[in-house]
């Protein structure tokens, strides 16, 4: 069922910018329009581009946010999330945890 909703109404996850907009909802309680506007502004794209796989594939590759079909060497997992936290100017718990561990 969630797969059906993703196809019909979803932003597209890390194929696009759905994961980034979701982060703004869960960390800043932003409503959908506000969250899209915030992420679009940080990424320097339009709000509509956020659901466009053609635009976002390139943007994610350039910013090191991780893509579904990444080539060897592309940021993935934790590394990608560290870049996302920096560009979106938010705290991501596991990245903060890694930073604390790194300093210890």
């Amino acid at each position, binding site marked *: *069922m*969630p797969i059906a909703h993703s196809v*019909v*109404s979803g932003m597209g996850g890390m194929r696009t910018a759905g994961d980034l907009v979701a982060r703004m909802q*869960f960390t800043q309680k932003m409503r959908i329009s506000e969250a899209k506007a915030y992420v679009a502004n940080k990424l320097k794209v339009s709000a509509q581009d956020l659901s466009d796989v053609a635009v976002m594939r390139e943007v994610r590759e350039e910013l090191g946010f991780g893509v579904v079909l990444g080539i060897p060497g592309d940021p993935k997992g934790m590394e990608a999330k560290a870049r996302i936290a920096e560009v979106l100017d938010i705290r991501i718990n*596991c990245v903060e*945890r890694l930073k604390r561990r790194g300093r210890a």
Partner: protein
Amino acid sequence: MSTYKVRAGDGRFISMTADEIRRDLIEGSEDAADRGGIPPLEENEIDRLLDLFLDQAGVVGVQIGNQVVSTQDGGDHRINADAGSCGLALAIGRIQELHLHERAFGQDTIELGHIDYSYKAVRPIVAQEQSYVEHALLTTTSPLMYGAMPNLGLYYAPDGPYANPSDLLPAGKVKEALAAQEEASLHAQRDIVYVGTRLADSGLDAMNLDTSGSAGDADFLASLNAAEELKAKRPDLGIEMGMASEFVLGMHGRLSYKGERLAGMYPHDQVRMAEAAGVDVFGPVVNTNTRRSTPWNVARAVCFVKACVQAANIPIHANVGMGVGGIPVLDTPSLDAVSRASVAMVEIARVDGL
């Protein structure tokens, strides 16, 4: 007169004329308005819903640019067990399932969860769950949530230490039933906070308090108190609160949060309580009536959720799964019904996510 195929609330196809569909849309909306004390849908909204149901495409979708955040609940057992304990769909591991949701299905968030899906059951094995969270976080990019239910039913005999209100109430032991619920609510709160703080310390992004209120107002209270306590202890942990039904069942009847009685609250009031507790994302539920058509059920659900969206200051992710949000009661619901409910929630109720 031309007829159109729509689904009944139990998932079977039925044929209706355009006038019959419109009548059901209006009646569904008015039923929600009457019960919830909220405005019915506007004429243009009924027209848009009618268009959705007269369109006989197998699958419909939202307009480009209108897409919203798509999350899932039920933990990482959507693929390997579908709806909780209702059968094995595909035998794969937990982390693989997260990768599938993130990389193949394009979900905007991913969710881990124990197969029992109750915080009480997770408490004794939380170290195992922390390990899974830590492993998952290394190789995934999307926000990782952990989902489970407060499930107050597990705190009552024979599963838990408190007498069962389902036995006490029919026997007329009202005082004992109320006391058992109050004690169980505090116990559930302790378990949720215990699990939540540990998972947060493992780097989890957000907790999902799913099917809050399933055992009534004491269940909802446990969720609210736990959310408030967790936010105080781990402010960076996101919290989603998903409900179990459209109104809070008064198994106790006298419990209140921030001075307001919880029993009988509909989504537009529930969300105010969730906000007061510090919840980040709220998931309203509207139940499906299997005897009515999907037009009736979708209009009714959209009417309730629209009022909730308008009352809210936090993102609203409507529950649109089997038997809720206008979806038929069938564990493999048809795409034609699911996609119409999905579009209606996004473009008419104006939800922030699903």
